[in-house]
């Protein structure tokens, strides 16, 4: 079993304004990109489940020209609110880094 970070050159999360989080996952090369995408492990369903948001609220783009997957979700807690844990939203990608990705 290999992990997502073995295939990528960048996995990051960041606020897209105080009310949304956005994830950018950039792959090392075309093979890495194809292998992960064909595994079906990285999907809008996974994000919905992992971050406990409604599947319909997950926006998921596969940008082939950049070998990149971009995902945006509403923030579980608005940035800086009394019970927020990450004002910049910069650590929400943590659970994705070691995501098990099956090879074909």
């Amino acid at each position, binding site marked *: 079993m290999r992990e997502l970070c073995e295939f990528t050159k960048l996995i990051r999360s*960041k*606020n*897209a*304004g*105080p*009310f*949304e989080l*956005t994830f*950018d996952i*950039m792959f090392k090369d075309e093979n890495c990109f194809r292998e992960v995408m064909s595994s079906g492990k990285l999907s809008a369903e996974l994000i919905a489940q*992992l*971050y*406990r948001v409604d599947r319909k609220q997950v*926006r998921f*783009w596969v*940008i082939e*020209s*950049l070998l*990149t997957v*971009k995902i*945006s979700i*509403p*923030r*579980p*807690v*608005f*940035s*800086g*609110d*009394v*019970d*927020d*844990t*990450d*004002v*910049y939203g910069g*650590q*929400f990608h*943590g*659970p994705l880094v070691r995501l098990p990705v099956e090879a074909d």
Partner: protein
Amino acid sequence: MKKIRAIAATGNLSTGFREETLVRAVQQGAHFIGCDAGTTDSGPYYLGSGNPRGPREGTKRNLRLMIREALNAGIPVIIGSAGHAGGTPHLNWTLEIVRELARENAWHFTLAAIDSEVPKEHLLKAFLAGRIAPLCPAPELHETSIRQAERFVAMMGIEPIQSALNAGAQVVVAGRCSDVAIYAALPVLEGIPKHVAFHAGKILECGSAAVAQRFYSDCMAAELDQDGFTVEPPNPTFRCTPQSVAAHTLYENADPYHLIESGGVVDTTAAKYEATSDRAVRVSGARFIPSEKYTVKIEGAALAGYRSIVVAGIRDPLVLRQLEPFLSSLRTVVERKIEDNLKLSRDAYTLQFRVYGSNGSLGQAEPCPQVEGHEVGLIIDVVAPSQSLAADILPIVWHTGLHHPIPEQQGLISNLAFPFSPPGADMGPVYRFCANHVWQLDDPCKPFRMAIEHL
């Protein structure tokens, strides 16, 4: 064919750039120097409190170099989102630095200040007239929440900046402002099409962030024409690649292809990024889709309470293996004590145990909150209606937690390792963002008040 050269001094006015890079960028030819000074990224505190994020000395140094180079070259300087949040106090803080620089250096120029703070009564009027609409997601906004909020700002588009330039301003200091508008205002005024100017603005707004490997924050430059723009870092050791520039279009933006701005949407679906050298990238093919109604975004912050915190470590494995029940029984005990001692019911304040080593970073969104390490860090976090109440609640919590029993240890135990004496601190007021709305305008300049000053 008319070409406009735009320089971004850096991604955020407080972070800085190298003097030699800015000098070189201006020498290569420039029509203006822009810089973004704000963001909502650091949370609602700055908008709510009216405090700038600073630092003052760094901001002053950067403004000094930008204004000096611009005055020498006879080109304008455009600062957006002054003082971080772009409210009246943030604008005034920045203007004071600019005036100080003019005095110290015997500079004479025309200064335009554009105030973007929206008085509550103005916003209320617009709200009641049905001209304020929520974005998604958004906190609920109503008459009471508008009245109770601390401060609102409207995010200006290109038009107020263009008015300032038309009025002969050599230095424009704008309150809350779209990052892209800082860089699109002058080119559009000079006849560059919006799809070029706005897309270039998005690439420039973070300064050197669009390079392949950013070693430190520095300047960025772009040359815009009728068909597209070429972006090339003025620092000779930095490089832009088609990949690095295209990737930057994604940054901090929820949708990779559609950038929503006041007045329209920049659609980059068909954008092309081509290397013109090993350091420069030509960008073309974006579309600008004008919106039916002109809107500006509204940001607001409201007071949520006052915070006091304590920092502690927990190392005893017997406590760690039952951490969740330990903290929930501690909560039950302290809620009763707070009620007895301070006559405060538990809904009158917020008590949070933030456990680092469990779910400190992600909170409820953490998929694996179980404790696996040999210790955890604990922040006891109290938010109450006044600072003195928060400060009164806090010792009840930490002192009770210090000696809170577990079944395996018989006798008085001390569970919390405090690194500090006193163990905690008052954190001051806490704010929350209370608006993510748009305001429909007939005149894009209407809510923004411009003042011209001859220094």
